């Protein structure tokens, strides 16, 4: 019996050590691949940043009308954002290569499903990016227009519009990622409707005077504004 127990222990230790010995080169390869990819990512990021700086990418982007992109970038530099994105992609590629060295079968499956899902991720990122830029642009347009029209709730209106666009964008991005589509649709409906209702209520309650003035103006087109105020801009 003692012999049999010794044999079982010996076999289990052998199996474990053999498995470990089989896995060890893969783990070493994973670490090596990760270290190499980090080093490569650092070099490539440096080169990309150097090239973009040489091309005056940040200034050109501002000239092309994407000034707001700087606010979303690290240290207000879109060139840095691009270089860091490239570096991130290199590190992810290195990680996948390393994983393939550990376990070919499951990693191939993982890589296949990852690359299958990649278009969804890219589309979601693109939707989020465009949505954020559009939200900021529209919010600023509404803010300036509302201030020029002497609306006391200009900031509220601008924030409301911004969040409407952002909620719509996030819902679209999640739809692309196929994350809980039913919940997303429901949540989006509730949030969107809620924001619209809140805006309508706040604007409606604040603009009683404005509506009265507007109705007076419609009723009598020879309004006091044109008679009493002598100012002419052009």
């Amino acid at each position: 019996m003692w012999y049999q127990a010794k044999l079982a222990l010996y076999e289990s230790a052998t199996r474990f050590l053999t498995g470990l010995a089989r896995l060890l080169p893969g783990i070493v390869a994973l670490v090596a691949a990760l270290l190499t990819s980090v080093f490569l990512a650092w070099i490539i990021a440096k080169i990309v940043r150097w090239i973009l700086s040489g091309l005056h990418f940040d200034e050109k982007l501002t000239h092309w009308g994407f000034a707001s992109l700087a606010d979303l970038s690290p240290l207000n530099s879109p060139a840095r954002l691009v270089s860091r994105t490239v570096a991130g992609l290199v590190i992810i590629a290195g990680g996948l290569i390393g994983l393939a060295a550990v376990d070919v079968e499951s990693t191939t499956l993982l890589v296949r499903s990852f690359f299958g899902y990649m278009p969804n991720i890219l589309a979601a990122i693109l939707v989020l990016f465009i949505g954020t830029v559009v939200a900021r642009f529209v919010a600023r347009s509404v803010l300036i227009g509302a201030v020029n029209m002497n609306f006391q709730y200009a900031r509220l209106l601008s924030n409301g519009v911004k969040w409407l666009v952002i909620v719509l964008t996030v819902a679209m991005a999640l739809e692309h990622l196929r994350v809980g589509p039913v919940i997303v649709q429901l949540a989006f409906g509730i949030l969107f409707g809620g924001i619209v209702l809140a805006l309508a209520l706040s604007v409606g309650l604040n603009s009683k005077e404005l509506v009265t003035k507007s109705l007076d103006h419609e009723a009598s087109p020879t309004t006091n504004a044109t008679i009493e105020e002598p100012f002419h801009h052009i």
Partner: protein
Amino acid sequence: MEVDLERERVQEKIEQTDKADLVVGIVAEIDQAGIEVLVESLRNFPGVPRIVVLQKGLSTKSPATAAEGSGKDAAKDASLAVLPWPLELGAAATPVEIISEAYRSVFAASDKLEARACCIVASTLESATAQWICQLLRPLLQEDFDFVAAHYARRTFGGLLNYSIVYPLTRCLYGKRIYNPMGPDLGVSRRLYQRLLWANGNTRPGNGRIHPLASFAPMALCRSLKVGQVHVAARVDTPTDWTNVGPLMSSVLGPLFVDMEINASCWQRTRGSTLVPEFGLPLPVSREPGKVDIGRMVETFRLGIRDLREIWGAVLPPSSVFELTKLARMTPEQFRLPEDLWARIIFDFALAHRLRTINRNHLLPSLAPLYLAWVASYAREMDAGATQAERIIDRVALAFEAGKPYFISRWRWPDRFNP
């Protein structure tokens, strides 16, 4: 489709017409009797130049075009022809766009007819339109001037955007005191309109970088052409639309700032300002009837300080934002925007326009509350009755001239020179 056919018919008529000395484009709403008086005055113009009048709103199919309707003599008179003038305009065209398109169209016709000069009548004046059109034409045809601007009789609260920004900026940049540099009623020589046509090339309306209204005066001044101005009656103003001040700032100041960029090498060499030759007798400043209420304008400015601080902070130096914050705390009775601060604000906005610090579609409308603050300050000073309108406008223009070194420094070294 109808407009295209109409244009083709007009093109045919222009091609049938012999060469002309002068082309007059009429965009303003002038009644038939007014047109007849104008045609009669032009026929009696000294030297009997051959004149073509393009009138907006006429139809080639109309049995009573102005030429026929202006009397049998005019029909017989080969030296004068009145043609209909269909303008290609979008439904949402602003007054500035309409006049710009009118200029482009009249240049093309003038070029075809090899006219020595052309002029646009875009305003309805309070008195004797025919007389002042002839006054505008005289320096062009008789004294070989290249650019003749109308100097409208001042009204206390009329043309405020011109007198607060366009006039002082043009005066300080190019060194000549042209009171209405953007017209819209202007006379232009062949030399000048051809330059503008060449500069614009064959681009579609609105696509070209050169904007006729904003570009005439700078182009003439930078090329040392002969420039003058004619005293005429006050313009009949359209009612003010207070909800439209932002777009107005964009349509007027956008082309002006673009032109500054184009002529940067020219205006950086100029210091001070001088008068240009003037024709006719100046008319006194008249005060409009009506109550002056600056409350709404001050309120808009305060809203701007509260909500647009982020945008203004990106455009203006901290010292200017601080002074504006102090101004917002003043009561309407104390409200006064100093001229030097106003000049620096305009210079900083011009620089931000050039550098695209923020999107241009946001930049110029965001200037509207500041402009209304200037109008409120001006109106309060006028209402106090202590100062004359002309003196205030002159003070503003001098502040712009005094601030020019600041502007040049910021223009040349926007990052290094930021007080």
